[in-house]
């Protein structure tokens, strides 16, 4: 079914000259790929053309919420050195769209009409913010449309969002929001996913009145169980953000002073939530229209195999938020859509970019390529927000008392599931640990930062939990500091670090007739190093003197 091109030098009869790479997309993942391919460009083994729709060089989207509330500078968003890439001969076209991939000609067509030839095409087109169905907002069905020649219209097509309504995805969005935050606007965030919550908390911290509207019972409902979500909502409220749950947004009410401007969000139950700016945070969708139109297999992203090659065309690759990694179906496989999809997280995207560029470098240099790209473990999701700590990973659904069902659901022989849980909603603390045969398989941690950090390491490594699970809770408790509350006059408590002298040794010396700090020093060497403990020696002396 898929036409199998021989990617090796397919567009290059005789294999003469450097391999021509075209990279579509110049976000943080694309930029990482370009940086990592530079050595091959320097060595004359490859040429690289980068086409980016945004009018600026790549920047770090992870920090966009911080930037949108004025917490950090534009400079801090830089993740690549475009000057170095250009100096190496990389052609970087910003503000440029690709309107078509011509697989038989091995070219891409740019919005300018130019056709760029390639031997390998790498798609890093990323994802765009989802625009929910709301009366008053036009939804664009991108996959049915050719990309516009004008790069600026890549996501809005001919239907820009109304005034006072924005997503939070790119620098333009961030600048719109920054202006609102600075003017003290009241901000309504629609959607309680990670990005929406991070932004709402940052905006509240920057002084904006902020409200998060979400349907369902709990925020981050894709990642958290009910307990964790409930405690999290409470913590967020304590941080000054209003949380409106069970709110099914239906339409938008506009001010109309010539040009309509956002006034309120109207929910199915008639609730009106007023504000100056509506920030849509309803997830993202991969930009796959180019791939679809070129006839590449697409599901929730461009379908690629474990080596990031398109299922359909072996000369085309996809990485980052536009890539859906799934095994290529064998003959006669079911036509059901493959599981999984883009993670939407930057870490896996960077790992893909690094790995793919390393593969290309090795191949071009004629050396043995490194190991295959390891399958991406289930992502650890955490909120980048100061003062509200939530981390979750893996399977968090099994219930404390209901693990038989979880065992069964996971299939026979897949191991014994058990759940340990700690909940203290009043103080905003909640931890749930799900293990399979003792190995951490999923967890939620709210309001317990140190515990969360340790659980993250254990989870990522596939480690066993200590039999006494409560150890992991105590990291955030006062008794974690073993010395705190310890008896400073216990016989084995060290007094003099320089000479390793304990309370016991000093009391023996006192028993032996020593009566001053100096005498004790002569007898035991306590206090004869840095001298920092002479006060402590005096205390011991006072307490144990006959």
């Amino acid at each position, binding site marked *: 079914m898929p036409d199998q091109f021989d990617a090796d030098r397919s567009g290059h009869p005789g294999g003469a000259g450097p391999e021509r790479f075209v990279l579509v997309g110049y976000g*943080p993942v694309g930029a990482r790929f370009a940086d990592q391919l530079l050595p091959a460009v320097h060595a004359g083994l490859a040429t690289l053309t980068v086409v980016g729709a945004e009018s600026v060089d790549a920047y*770090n989207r*992870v*920090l966009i919420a*911080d930037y949108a509330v004025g*917490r*950090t*500078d534009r*400079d*801090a*968003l*830089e*993740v*690549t*050195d475009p000057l170095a890439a250009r100096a190496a001969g990389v052609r970087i076209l910003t503000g440029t769209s690709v309107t078509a991939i011509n697989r038989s000609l091995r070219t891409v067509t740019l919005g300018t009409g130019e056709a760029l030839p390639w031997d390998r095409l790498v798609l890093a087109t990323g994802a765009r913010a989802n625009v929910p169905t709301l009366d008053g907002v036009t939804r664009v069905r991108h996959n049915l449309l050719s990309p516009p020649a004008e790069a600026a219209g890549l996501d809005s097509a001919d239907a820009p969002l109304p005034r006072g309504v924005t997503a939070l995805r790119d620098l333009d969005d961030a600048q719109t929001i920054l202006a609102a935050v600075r003017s003290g606007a009241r901000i309504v965030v629609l959607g309680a996913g990670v990005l929406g919550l991070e932004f709402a908390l940052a905006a509240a911290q920057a002084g904006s009145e902020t409200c998060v509207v979400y349907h369902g019972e709990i925020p981050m409902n894709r990642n958290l169980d009910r307990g964790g979500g409930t405690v999290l909502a409470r913590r967020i409220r304590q941080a000054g953000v209003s949380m409106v749950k069970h709110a099914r947004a239906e339409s938008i009410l506009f001010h109309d002073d010539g040009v309509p401007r956002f006034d309120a969000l109207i929910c199915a139950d008639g609730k009106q939530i007023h504000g100056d700016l509506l920030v849509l945070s309803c997830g993202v969708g991969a930009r796959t229209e180019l791939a679809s139109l070129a006839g590449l297999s697409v599901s929730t992203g461009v379908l690629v195999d474990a080596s990031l090659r398109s299922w359909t065309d072996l000369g085309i690759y996809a990485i980052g938020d536009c890539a859906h990694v799934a095994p290529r179906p064998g003959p006669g496989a079911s036509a059901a859509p493959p599981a999984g999809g883009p993670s939407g997280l*930057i*870490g896996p995207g*960077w790992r893909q970019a690094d790995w793919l560029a390393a593969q290309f470098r090795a191949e071009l240099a004629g050396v043995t390529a490194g190991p295959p790209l390891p399958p991406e473990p289930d992502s*650890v999701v*955490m*909120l*980048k927000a*100061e*003062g509200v*700590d939530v981390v979750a990973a893996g399977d968090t659904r099994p219930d404390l008392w209901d693990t038989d069902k979880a065992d069964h659901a996971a299939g026979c022989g897949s191991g014994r599931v058990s759940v340990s849980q700690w909940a203290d909603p009043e103080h905003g603390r909640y931890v749930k640990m799900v293990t399979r045969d*003792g*190995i951490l398989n999923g967890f939620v941690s709210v309001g317990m*930062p*140190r515990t*969360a*950090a*340790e659980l*993250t*390491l*254990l989870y*990522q*490594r*596939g*480690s*066993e939990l*200590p*039999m*006494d699970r409560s*150890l992991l809770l105590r990291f955030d408790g006062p008794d974690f*500091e*073993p*010395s*705190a509350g310890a008896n400073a006059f216990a016989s084995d408590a*060290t007094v003099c*670090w*320089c*000479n*390793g002298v304990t309370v016991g040794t000093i009391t023996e010396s006192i028993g032996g007739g020593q009566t001053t700090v100096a005498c004790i020093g002569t007898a035991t*060497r306590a206090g*004869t*190093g*840095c*001298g*920092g403990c002479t006060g402590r020696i005096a205390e011991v002396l006072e307490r144990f003197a006959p």
Partner: protein
Amino acid sequence: MDSATSTHCPYCALQCAMTLTAHGAGVTVTGRAFPTNRGGLCKKGWTAAELLTSPDRILEPMMRRPDGSFAPASWAEALDLIAERLSGSRAEHGADSVGVFGGGGLTNEKAYQLGKFARVALGTSRIDYNGRFCMSSAAAAGNRAFGLDRGLPFRVEDLDAAGTILILGSNVAQTMPPFIGHLDGARAAGGLIVVDPRRSATARLTDDGAGLHVQPTPGSDLALLLGLTHIVITEKLVDVAYVADRTVGFDELRRSVGAWYPERVQAATGVPAWQLRQAARRLAAGHGTYILTGRGVEQHVDGTDTTTAAINLSLILGLVGTTHSGYGTLTGQGNGQGGREHGQKCDQLPGYRKITDPAARAHVAGVWGVSPESLPGVGLPAVQLLASMGVSGGIRCLLVHGANVVVSAPDAKQVRTGLEALDFLVVSDFFFSETAALADVVLPVTQWAEEDGTMTSLEGRVIRRRRAVTAPPGVRSELWILHELARRLHSPSTFSTDPAEVFDELCRASAGGLADYSGLSYDRLGAGDESDEPTYWPYPAGSTGTPRLFLDRFAHADGRARIHAVQNRATDAPAATGGILTLITGRLLEHYQSGAQTRRVPELANAQPEARLQLHPATAEQLGVVHGGWVNVTSARGIVRCRAEVTLDIRHDTVFLPFHFPGDQSANRLTGGATDPISGMPEFKTTTVRVRAVAEHAEPEEMRVYA
């Protein structure tokens, strides 16, 4: 009649000042006022003189007999044999068949003379030293960033006025205890930040509001530093004017740390984001801020890059080369600083010169009276040098001075095998160290109280070691041994036996180099037996030395420091299941290095007679290990059998072994031979091991071999 001599402690790089009083029965040690130790000494210092009269001391040259035992020999016999074997090997297998292994405990004079002896008398490039295991990553990072490597480019007592001190991977409270007095100011200000996977004695100094203990998982230090740098940049805490005026490379750094936001660092290190933010903000808060690194972050395959990350953080905060703040690395061995300046390193000539630099070769050859062309080129760094023993084309004869590689080198079992495969091994030591026990000839040498010389302390201060007592009659100084061997080898240069003369020659050889001592002499260092002149290098002729470096410029041609962006390597920490854990190694208060000396001091040996594996109670429970019970610790390289010490002072995914002990308690039987690509520093601090409880009398799982 009693006589008092002012000298310094034989052990660590703090070089505490002490007074030795010789009397009929021996020598009494007392502390002496000095800015670093202020009259105090630690347990090791107080007991140092016991080794002068140790019954274990070797008092005449020992030669191995055909049956494998040792018999005393005269100096003439021993030296004749050595000269014959070395020249024979050279004639048959080439000059590079003879290796020399030096130490960071040797005086400057000995270190200098050893480097000269190798290059001139032996003509070999194969010289390196145990400092490769300690300081080479920090040295490489310092040279790369500042153009010069002096461990602390400021005085130790300058730390007293600091409000914030960040210590990364150093347990100073046990390794150089009197140093901690200089942390009191920062502790009083609540500003001591200690980064260590263990709740070490030093980490405890942060208790009770004195600061912050940051406890990352082993091997994640670089990610931690990238994270702190990220926070400083994103929160606009950078010293912008300093970065613009005094550094190059900031933009690249900014881009390289963009990806290391606190939550990602949390996931990589186990350190919560709030703690990272708190630490970064504190570092930027002013009041005099110092960042200090130690072996814990340096002894890794990415040690140079990790140290560089610490330097980068210091530079963007504007700390280095100011009157109030700074960055430094805490040199460990007594002369670990001087030992890396005067030609023991495989790529260096005296004065911290590069052996590949034609001008340096010409200058040094001029001082030595030989032709520059006759000097060999770059040799092999320590791990590779030792790995070449018994290997075709490798070294066949080895001279060891001031080192006990059987215990101190990584992959110790392989090192032992290599030593056994040598044609000829000569060890100069006071005792039958584990390495000496494998030698063909053992030469007894003088101890610190029996010799004159100079040491360069961790703050780059050149100090005098003074002779307090006469050495036993059969014992000789290494200067004398090298002189005698050079004569027998018909060396084209001269080798003085007088330390003052050697020092003068060293000063001439160093003139114009980075570590320039040319303005120094024994007179200048303090003529009488009492004084200690504050002499910090660089000390070119006509100057008065340099207590604080870089105040006006860095040592690169343009005067600016280099910010060198570094990347985190992917870590693949093992899954902690079935007893798989990460081993880290380090020191105990009572012992020094391989323990060859301190294990022979009864008071120290009684306090810490054996290696104990530290592990967390939860880990112990899981593995069925009890406090004081026996465990086997295995890695891909070897096995250690010892008792367990169950303690809350360590992370649950980590175990700790001290590296002072020999035989089947030798931590370095477990460590591997991977090295840093820039410095040649071996990876000591993250080794994957499996821990298993065993019965007390269980048979060890491999042959026990004792020499």
